[in-house]
Structures are given as C-alpha cells and as structure tokens.
C-alpha cells in the first residue's frame, strides 16, 4: 500500500482517484472492461445519451490526423430507456462513480433527459452543450454565453444530481462561457470538448469524414486544453474536470496543476485501452517520488 492519497472530492462526491474517461470514447465501459478493471477508476463517464435513440452521422465518421483524430459520430446513442436498463445496471457492478453525459436537440430535450435521470443511481450529470456535430441546436448553447446560462438554469431546476456543464473550445473566450455556466448555477465545468477540424482526402477530392467537419481530439490538442483549464480556473469558483489529449500521468498532472480536480482520458484509450490505469499508477508514482502526500495539494498549484 502506498502512502499517497489520490482521493479527490467534487460537489460533495468522493472519488477514489482523479481519473475518469472522456464521454464517447469509452462507451458505457462494457467493451473496455475486458482490459480495464473499472473498480480502479475514479469514475466512468458514459457516452452522450438522449431521450430517444439517435442514429448519428453517415460514415466515414472518423479520420486520423497528426497526433490526433477528428470524429463526427453525431451522438449516436440507444436512448435513455435502453441506457437505463442495460448500461447503468452494468456499471453498478463496479465500485466507481458514474457520470452520465447528456445530449439533446433542444432545451426541452435536455430538461426531459435530466428529469428522467433524476432518480437513476448515477452520481453526476454532464451536460454536453458543445458537441460540434449536432446542427439542430447544441452548437448554439455551446458558443453563446447567454444560451449557456439559460440552459444551465433550466437543467438545474429539475436536476437531482450535481450538474457539470461541458464546454466547447471553439470560442473566443472560454472564461466567459464558464462564467455564464456559473451564473446559471452549474456545479462544475468540464473542458475541453473537441476543436472543430477538417481533413481533406486529396486523392478522392472530398472530405475525409462524411460530415465535412469533425471534432478534433487527442494529444495534438493538449496545449489548447491546458490553457483553457487554466483560464477557467482563474475565472470561476467551480471545480473543473480537465481533458484533451491526456495519454499519461505527466499530461494529467499538467491539467491538475492548471486547476483540474478530475481528469479524463479520451482518445488515448483508442491507442492503448490501458491508458487510464497507467495514468492512475503514474500519478501515484509521481506523488511518491516528489513527496506529495495528497494529490489535492497539486490542484491549481501553478499560478
């Protein structure tokens, strides 16, 4: 047993360590449970779910880019009914927290989803107002502060779990977006979602993903993500879940030192399904080596 305390708490919930997964890169954990002992994660964050099943975008839905990828899955999901019947009971077999990522086409759909999740045995809800692949409305919430504040309020009015607002990096001022969520009553913010990108297939003279644009993620985006976490940490009094390109403990520590309480591993899972475990172990090793007794000492330590 090590002497390092990796536990963190966020909105009154205790996590055994600060490591979770980025929504959409880990399903509901089933597939990855063949590689990863889910009991070892601070939390599992599930793929975005809506009140009804969504079919998502046409294929190709992804393309590899230099040090990253772009995706335009289009929030395909089986809908809340199947999710609550199948995925939540599966996750309840594990000793880990559950964060449910929620998507919708309109304020009403978000509110309806949050209502239906109110009595589900899940720990937190993460509201994805920033998915660049949904045209019907999601995108506006994610880039206009007033809309973000409004939807935060609407969701908070019906939510029983703490609400995390997930921010898009495709804005001039991420601090303004975070302030708007804080004003709307958010309990936490998570960032970053994907950077809108494009890849052109020069041989076929067309777009590499059918949706033309997609969301860029992976190690390539990390500097933007760390900068935004730092800006938000200095703009609001909300706890932060940091993500964007984390593939090892050193990356996670950048986010923690910039101000994140929890960190999420996303795209790196595709490169190595054991990344989350390696991050947990690496955080512990770093703390031991540097005489850090409690990882909480490191949160926001770089000013």
């Amino acid at each position, binding site marked *: 047993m090590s002497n390092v305390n990796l536990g963190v708490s966020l909105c009154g919930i205790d996590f055994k360590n600060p490591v979770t997964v980025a929504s*959409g*890169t*880990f*399903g509901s954990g*089933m*597939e*990855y449970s*063949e*590689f990863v002992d889910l009991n070892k994660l601070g939390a599992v964050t599930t*793929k975005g779910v809506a009140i009804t*099943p*969504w*079919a*998502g975008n046409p*294929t*190709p*839905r*992804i*393309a*590899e880019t*230099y*040090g*990253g*990828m772009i*995706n335009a*899955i289009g929030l*395909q999901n*089986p*809908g809340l009914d*199947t999710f609550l019947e199948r995925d939540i009971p599966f996750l309840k077999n594990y000793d880990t927290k559950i964060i449910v990522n929620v998507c919708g086409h309109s304020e009403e759909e978000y509110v309806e989803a949050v209502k239906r999740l109110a009595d589900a045995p899940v720990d937190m809800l993460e509201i994805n107002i920033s998915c660049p692949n949904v045209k019907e409305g999601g995108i506006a919430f994610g880039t206009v502060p007033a809309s973000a504040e409004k939807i935060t309020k609407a969701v908070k009015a019906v939510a029983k779990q703490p609400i995390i607002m997930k921010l898009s990096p495709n804005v001039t001022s991420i601090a303004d977006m975070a302030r708007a969520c804080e004003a709307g009553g958010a309990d936490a913010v998570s960032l970053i979602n994907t950077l809108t990108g494009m890849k052109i297939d020069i041989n076929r003279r067309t777009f590499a993903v059918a949706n033309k644009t997609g969301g860029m993620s*992976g*190690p390539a985006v990390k500097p933007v993500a760390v900068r935004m976490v730092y800006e938000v940490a200095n703009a609001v009094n909300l706890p932060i879940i940091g993500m964007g390109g984390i593939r090892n403990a050193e990356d996670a520590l950048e986010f923690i030192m910039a101000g994140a309480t929890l960190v999420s591993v996303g*795209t*790196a*899972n*595709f*490169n*190595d*399904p*054991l990344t989350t475990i390696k991050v947990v172990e690496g955080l512990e090793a770093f703390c031991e080596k540097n005489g850090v007794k409690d990882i909480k000492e490191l949160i926001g330590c770089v000013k």
Partner: protein
Amino acid sequence: MTFRENATITKATKLATGVFEIWFETKDIAKAAIPGQFISVYSNHGERLLPRPISICRIDGNLLRIVYRVVGAGTDEFSKMQVGEKLTIQGPLGNGYELDKIKAAIEAKGGNFKKALLFGGGIGVPPMLELAASLDIETDVVLGYRDSENFLKDEFEKVANVHIATDDGSVGFHGNVIDAAKDENLKADVIFACGPLPMLKGVKTFANELGIPAYISLEEKMACGIGACLACVCKTSKKDEHSQVNNARVCKEGPVFDAAEVEI
C-alpha cells in the same frame, strides 16, 4: 477474450507489388482466433494513434499471419519492419466466420451446408485463406486480382478448388469474380466473400439470384476497434440490438455479416 501484445515478427516478406505479409509470434491471440476475425495493429510512431485493422490470413499454433497492401503511412511503416522487431497488436477482434453458427442458421432455414463458394477480391483474398483451410466441406474459391501477381494462389490450391479472375485478363478469367463464377457455372449452398464494396454488392445480388445465403466482410474506418466508439457502423435492415437504431458495429457485430441483413 481479446488480448493486447507487443508481438515479435518472425517473418516479413513482400508477396507482390505493394503487398506484404507479416507473421507474428503471439502469446494468446493466435490461439483465440478464428477465420474472418481481424487484429488491430498499432504504429510505433506517435503521430499515428489509431490502430490499423488487418484481417487474419492464417493461424498456425501461436503464429499469426497478416497480409496487407501498402496504401498509406501506417501500412508503409509495417512494410519496413524486419524479423525480430515488434509491433503492438490487439485481438482477435470481431465475430469472424462462426462456422457452426452459420451452419446451424442455414440448416434451421432448411438449407444445406455441404458446398461453399468463396470470393476474394484484391486485398480481400488473404482473409479467405484461413477460412478455406478451415472448411471441411467442398470448397470453390474465386480469387480476383489486378494482374498476374497472384499472391497466395499456391496456398489456396492446397485447400480448395481455385479459380482466378484478373482485371487485365493475364491469368484465368478476364473480368470480375462474379462473372468468373457464372462463367464456370459454380454452384454452392453458401457464399463467403471479402473484397471491395462493388464486388460485395455483386456477391449480394448473385447470392440472391442463387437463393443462397452470403456472408460478407465489411470494412469501415475504426478508432477503438472493440465496439466502444461507434465510428465503424454499417446500415442494417433491422433495428440493431446494441444501438437501437439500424447501425451495427463492423468491429463488434461484424466484420462478417449476412449480406441480407446489411444495406450496402
């Protein structure tokens, strides 16, 4: 069970222009694999993060063989690897040709499972080899190539009746694999096929005409390769159980599908 291994290359050869094979020594993957499954092959270069899905061409004890065409930076990297070097691979992945299940399904519908017809087109040829070797029923294989570089042909001849079709007419039938099969009046109880999409469409129609089932291998761009990210879906005719929409995951429910159940 799926395994992740840093596997040593025991053989790496060029089979034809732009077509290479690698044999890996694996701990668990080869033993767990069946024909039609694939593995994820990871680049040793950090700018390429996503795995390259490559079909299993041959299984021999702990040894696993892949055969691939160089089309981009990842396959180019693999083609330069040498014996003794290592690549991280993950698998076996996907459903593969689950012959017992397929046989049972066909027989349940009153069909036979006594004569198989395999189609392999281009880089869809290699995955048919382990299947041809595994089938213990009479097996015709129609292999389609661009030209006279008929990689793996000799090996197919040891395990099946081989028919060749070439785009340039240099060997065998001049034309596509379906026309070759028609030309030779090949008949079967079941079809298995891997190849480019136009060929698979042809196979689907051909199977319909013959009134027999066809099991085809689909391709799609993948990120996780294990069913978590929903990148690799294909359209299904019925609502897919996992997705609750008409989208099956090529990496999980596939890559082998009953042609009647997918929209291609």
